[in-house]
């Protein structure tokens, strides 16, 4: 639940008085023209935008995490929040390490044991429809995968720590049709078990996967359907 949220960077207001309520366990899409503030808004939901130099936030963001409604600025540190609210960016950003270590990284931060990490790695790679493609190559540098598999790896990594909310910033924009279809299928599946907030400007994609749509224009958000 976002209440009267404004964000300015270096004294310039980029988002104005945004209020929004999203139901649990659905795919919610935010659409709008390029430069309208979609990515900035999404990054505010896990407190990334506010860490930029000169970033200032006004308003309140509350989320149901671990069954409780919490104010993300008052009750959680950014790193605690990001373990519950994972984000995947427009361009895949695998860490410069092996596929296996990429998935293990967020789990190690959470103090998981080695055996459990191995199980979870296989599980999330299967969820991301990537396991069969990479099961023989788990120890290669993740950056050697092509764009589609890299993006699915990033989604798998985001899912590894069992986040309650998943933020996806145009996850298919840099991919070909076939890779994009696989990720769309994955988003649909994910939306059944957790809240997914998807930023996209592909109308057709939004129609296929989202059950709630918001439109961002010049830093103002309005509900579409």
């Amino acid at each position: 639940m976002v209440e009267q949220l404004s964000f300015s960077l270096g004294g310039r207001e980029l988002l104005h008085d945004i209020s929004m309520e999203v139901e649990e366990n659905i795919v919610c899409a935010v659409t709008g023209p390029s430069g309208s503030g979609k990515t900035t808004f999404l990054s505010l939901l896990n407190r990334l935008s506010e860490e930029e130099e000169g970033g200032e936030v006004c308003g309140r963001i509350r989320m149901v995490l671990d069954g409780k409604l919490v104010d993300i600025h008052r009750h959680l540190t950014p790193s605690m929040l990001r373990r519950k609210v994972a984000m995947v960016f427009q361009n895949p950003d695998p860490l410069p390490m092996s596929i296996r270590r990429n998935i293990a990284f967020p789990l190690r931060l959470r103090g998981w044991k080695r055996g459990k990490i191995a199980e979870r790695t296989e599980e999330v790679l299967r969820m991301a429809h990537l396991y069969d493609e990479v099961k023989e190559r788990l120890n290669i540098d993740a950056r050697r995968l092509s764009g589609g598999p890299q993006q699915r790896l990033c989604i798998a990594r985001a899912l590894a720590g069992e986040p309650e909310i998943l933020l996806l910033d145009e996850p298919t924009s840099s991919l070909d049709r076939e890779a994009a279809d696989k990720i769309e299928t994955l988003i649909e599946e994910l939306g059944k078990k957790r809240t997914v907030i998807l930023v996209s400007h592909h109308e057709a994609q939004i129609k296929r996967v989202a059950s709630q749509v918001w439109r961002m224009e010049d830093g103002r958000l309005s509900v579409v359907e």
Partner: protein
Amino acid sequence: MKRFAELLLVIFSWLALLVFAASFLSIFVVLLLRVRGLDAVSLFFGDTPPVDALLHGLPVFDGIYPALLGTVSVVMVAVLCAVLPGIFTGIYLAEFAGPWAHRIVNLLVDVLAGLPSIVVGLAGFSFMVLLHNLFPGAPGPCMAWSALALGFLVLPYLVRTTETALQAIPAELRRTAPTLGATKVQNIFFVLLPFRAKDLLGGVILATGRAAEDTAVIMLTGVVASAPGMHSLFKQFEALPFYIYYMSSQYRDLAELQYGFGASVTLLLLCGLFFAAAFLLQSYVSFRFRGSSWLQK
């Protein structure tokens, strides 16, 4: 015209490379010619039987073995002393320093980098004398003082390489680990530093080379022409650069001068050995962090 300029650039680049290679080779060739015929065993151990020197610690009076040991020890201690402060100052400058702190620390590092080594040696010597006056039991000229002064001398190399390496990391990579829930410190130690480990080790290599070749600093703080016995951190010691300086300026006959050239070749080989070890370590670190891609390339 453009093609002609390109051609000129290529020719000049090749010429520069040739000049570099020729200078490098000529140093080697001159040194190798000078040591031709020199008996390696007597160069290292003089009249002392090598087995007794190596296994039983028998003093070596005429050879460069004590100087070789002294150089290896003082360089290792100096780099060990400088690595942590150097890398952490670099991390501070790249990741935490505000504009003012950045300017001030940067200035200090620049000043330190520009200090002639004799000045660092003199400062080390003065500090040693001051400490000795305050605490009469404090050690006089010894390997520990030399190592500390050398560590001070190589600190800027470590600071700069760490800072530059961290600053060159793309913003996307910098953002990835925090998005997954890593704190800033976890991001630095688990992702950014390992990602740049090769460059950091590059800084250590530079520092090692610089420490190994310096004479002025150790001359004022602990090195002597002859210290044939066992080495200790709190005793005076022999070192190759000083041995070379001493032999080339005070030789009594050509045989002694040839010993100086022999020590020069040994110092070059020792530096080569340090660099080779560091290169292997760089490759190993890269392999450990990035998976097996290194083997499959």
